[in-house]
């Protein structure tokens, strides 16, 4: 087996964060390839060649008919077998922003409640228009559930990074749906008030705009499936790979280490793959 951790970064059809997503995996020791969705659909390549799958942000198909929906359909109908095999093989998947929307609409997130089940590709949640009705680019503060099974977020408590979306409000039909995910610690990452103590920021009650930029139920920013391998979030950790991308870096004394807080998420996945060998 090759020692390389191979990362498939999807692109095409309006995905537009593929370059930086590929770059951050390289920064943490992965070997990224930007791969057009159709190279998989047409059978020229296969997901089984890769160890990690990343579905980056963007405006796939212009987000018409709902964000991520048409890309989700391509994955659900044209790549169904490859995708199910990838998950069954226990390989990590991340969806960021539009990629998260696509994974939710594909049904990979949150997925069936028991970790042992094969993905059934049934949609159980959705991401809908921000309460403001506006697309916005702004930095938010995120806090992570330390007990989450998510392999992507180990040892990360709180980070800042930007959101850039018009449809980031996470919703599910009932409170029970949320309670179940919360009990499984699948509500991996939430928007929190930056003035709160680290580790104590997470709350269920709706936070005001702009602390919660979209009005997500229970302030959810991202979730994982029951296995903890599939992870999706609206904010963009890849957009905070270096401190020079932080909005206030000119007020900080940074010294020599300019690594941004977002990079650890990607490093976790690469290290997880290595640890499984």
């Amino acid at each position, binding site marked *: 087996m090759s020692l390389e951790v191979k990362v498939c970064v999807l692109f095409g059809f309006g995905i537009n964060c593929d370059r930086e997503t590929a770059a951050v995996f390289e920064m943490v020791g992965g070997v990224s390839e930007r791969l057009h969705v159709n190279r998989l659909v047409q059978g020229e390549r296969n997901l089984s060649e890769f160890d990690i799958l990343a579905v980056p942000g963007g*405006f796939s198909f212009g987000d018409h008919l709902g964000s991520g929906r048409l890309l989700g359909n391509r994955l659900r109908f044209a790549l169904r077998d490859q995708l199910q095999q990838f998950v069954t093989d226990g390989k990590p998947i991340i969806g960021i922003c539009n990629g998260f929307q696509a994974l939710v609409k594909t049904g990979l997130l949150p997925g069936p409640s028991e970790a042992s089940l094969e993905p059934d590709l049934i949609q159980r949640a959705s991401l809908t*228009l921000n*309460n403001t009705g506006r697309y916005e680019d702004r930095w938010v503060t995120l806090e992570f559930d330390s007990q989450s099974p998510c392999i992507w977020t180990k040892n990360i408590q709180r980070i800042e990074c930007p959101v850039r979306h018009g449809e980031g409000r996470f919703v599910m039909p009932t409170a029970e749906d949320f309670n179940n995910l919360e009990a499984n610690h699948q509500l991996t990452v939430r928007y929190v008030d930056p003035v709160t103590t680290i580790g104590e920021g997470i709350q269920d009650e709706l936070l005001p705009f702009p602390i919660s930029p979209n009005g997500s139920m229970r302030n959810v920013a991202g979730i994982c499936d029951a296995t903890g391998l599939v992870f999706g979030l609206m904010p963009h950790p890849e957009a905070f790979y270096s401190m020079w991308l932080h909005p206030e870096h000119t007020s900080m004394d940074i010294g020599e280490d300019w690594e941004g807080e977002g990079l650890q998420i990607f490093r976790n996945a690469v290290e997880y793959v290595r640890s499984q060998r």
Partner: protein
Amino acid sequence: MQEVRVEVTPLQTDGMRDVLGDVVQRQLFADHGIDVGKVRSIRGYLIRSSYSASEIEPRVQDIFSDPIIEFGAADTPLLEDKNFFPSPPALTVTVGFKPGVTDNPGAAANDGFKVLFPDGDSFISTYVSYAFLQLPDDIDHDWLASTLFNGLIEKSILTTKEQLESGNATYLTYPERPSIERQAPSIINLELADEELIRLSTEGLLALNLNEMQTIRDHYRDEPTRAARTNIGISPNAPTDVELECLAQTWSEHCKHKIFASKIHHIDRETNEDTVIDSLFKTHIMKPTHDMAKEVDWLLSVFHDNSGVIAWNDDWSICMKAETHNSPSALDPYGGAMTGIVGVNRDILGTGLGARPIANTDVFCFGPPNWTGELPSTLFHPSRVLRGVHAGVRVGGNESGIPTINGSIVFDERYIGKPLVYCGTVGLMPRRLADGRESHEKNPIPGDLVYMVGGRVGSDGIHGATFSSLELTDESPSSAVQIGDPITQKKMMDMLLEARDACLITCTTDNGAGGLSSSIGEMAEYTNGCEIDLGKVPLKQEGLSSWEILVSESQERMTVAVAPKDKDAFEALAQLHEVEATQVATFTNTGYFHVKHGEETVAYLPITFLHDGVPQLELESEWTPPQHVAFTPPNDLDQSILLKEMLARPNIASKETWVRQYDHEVIAQTVVKPFVGVERDGPGDAGLIAPIHGNSQGIVVSCGIAPRYSDIDAGAMVAASIDEAVRNAVCVGVDIDKMAGLDNFCWPDPIESEKTPDGKFKLAQLVRANRELERICRAYHLPCVSGKDSMKNDYGVWPNKISIPPTMLFSLFGNQPDVRKTATSNFKHHGERIYLVGTTFDELGASEVAFHLKERGDVEGIGGQVPLLEDPKSQLDVYRKLSAAIQNGLIRTAHDCSEGGLAVALAEMCIGGRCGAIVDIDGIGGGDAFTRLWSESLGRIIISVEAQHELDFVEIMEGADIHLIGMVTESSEFTVEDGYDTIIQADVDELTTSWKGALDMTGVVE
């Protein structure tokens, strides 16, 4: 073919919202102060396919509606569904597209539909219904509908409660495009009297003058021409309609910049100068740049390509282009602006062998958003123009994945007649491709195949170039308006960049103004000829005539040349990306632009005549300085109150609501963002990006615009614009020795005629503007590498004509050595020393404060000394020192001092830092305290420096005019003193409220 209607509406269960409806309610409140009550939305899809409603119904949730948040149904009008509308809404406005108008949601829906329903052709048209549940009685239904759609491109149906109750509701039907029959090319007789020639030009929207029409006529009198034409089998003595249209496009003001190329007889009544200028462009723009090119090695490609290219480092070059899309944006703000931004993206993609767009800039000039004065019936209210234009560039930029990193919005009453929509894009490309070719150079050879890539050709966008070369009137054609399709373009961009890197491209350019006639016509100059077959061009609609196919400006198209050996690889790549690429022409070296439609030759024009045949205009210019009542401010003003008013002036107020809706961080490279400071809401001066992931070398992008000064002197306007762009760039630490500029002129018609009796004056303004452009750029060693002009920015007919103030946007892009060492405008820490770099003069003429006090009725006029830049050479030296101080890490706070002078700049720095400052303006320059507070003298930047670096800073600035003016404090007070007098004392939170509230315009968010 069957037609099935699918409708979708948000669920109304606990926690679900109808955000689209909420937004309509809020915006009507924000713009008109009217509360229309609850609004609900329905999205509709009209599907034409071989599938029936019963086949589609089970898959509605797989394609059209989201099962968690929406309800969707086939062939069931939701308005009549009691579950969603227990009682019929008071009024429902349904808005759909007119036939032939780009319907992006429809195209996307059809893409999704085909995944599940692949058999046969399918077509989908979309609409949206806004249901006003309980409308107040006094609201006029037609007025309400008019706020929701644009009749030029959309149609609407109004459904009342009564109609629903009586079962008489009507529904939108599929927008049927009437079939058209292709017209065979006609022969146009030009052997006519002069007035007939002019009529031919006017009625045909050719925008050619008499001399140009005569030049074309004379071409067909030439015996060798006639012989060649007989030989090829085309009418020997007269042009075909294809040829005449092709010449009109190629020779349009829009494409040939005839005013900038004209011979101008210039008289100056002040100095008695009487001279002739042979081309403003060659004299004042091209020559200075070419002179500068002899001194540096980084100017790779200037003026001749779609954008100007400079070497950024050994591996990468960068390019930039800015365009205007004013006329289309006046007619349809949304579609016009969107095609503006995606169009300039294509200029970058069409530079060299293709550059990748990495950053956008947007600068708009509008009428005041709170305008309550008269409005000609054919013009939109400025707030609607603002919303529409903003939405267009937002969608165009965001969906293309290109961050918008810099821009501005300027307001003036005269832009009500014609808004200015400047869209700029920066591109990045490798210096060399894998096969060793330099990617900024095109290198086609005869025999190369020419592809049209991307969208198809339709009747939308015919006559855009010639139309924009005419003034706007009631009769302006709707075919000039289009809606962009960013996703089709994004797919094309992905594909072409892959083709470039695979070394498959020998030449490329975009299809913008003039369509294929311009794109292939321009590229054919490289090999000296081409042969096009219009019969091969994929059409949106059958039946277009040859001339329409040739000149249509349908969007999202690139023209790409490929060597015959690479044909298969190129076509395979297009197929992979689901991009249409069709070979429509071949390069030749015959010397002719040879156009066939099938076997028939429909145009046969010598390349030299097509490109160099247009006769030079000869114009008259005469400068008499305009007379203004002098600005004499009252001496009893409370400056603290005045500061709050100034911060709320639309030209100064925060545009955060608008700018945040642009993605300014996609691609993960934006180092200095549009908003900075502790609350991330202080103004950013220039955009700074580090586009190579992991590498800290940066690119600065900034702009300057100062149209108010044109009221006194358009030359001063230009100098101020350039200096502002440079100041902004210096504020983030630009590399002074590697920066390049772009000049984008927007002028009212400067050709004297019955329609424009003051043409000589407007042309003299242009002369003075160009002279200042040359003077400042030479002194700053700032080469202009690309530019554009838009010369007919007027509305209406003399004497009721509205002309814009002469406006030049100056955009700058340059190197920044290390983005880890940069500065932002927000004050950082208590105790930092505040310095003013530069000298303050008594320069209040046409200042923002003068306009403010005049609009308030406090003063009679805005006249006086306009800011000048008398010694730009030594100014550059100051900038070099300050940039060095930033690059050395000594300075991390710097802010440009412009509209509203020192007072506004300092207030903005306090707002960004949410901290106070105490400042003394005694001794910083000439004039009384009012003058020193509000004067807009150029060359000034405010910095703050930590005490430990102060001496080093002072040392590095030796020889520059710097003034220690104060200190950053922990308090929330902003205090300005003049010696012993306190002249401003203001609470920073209150200043923040004034600055941020004025242009919020969001309505209330629950």
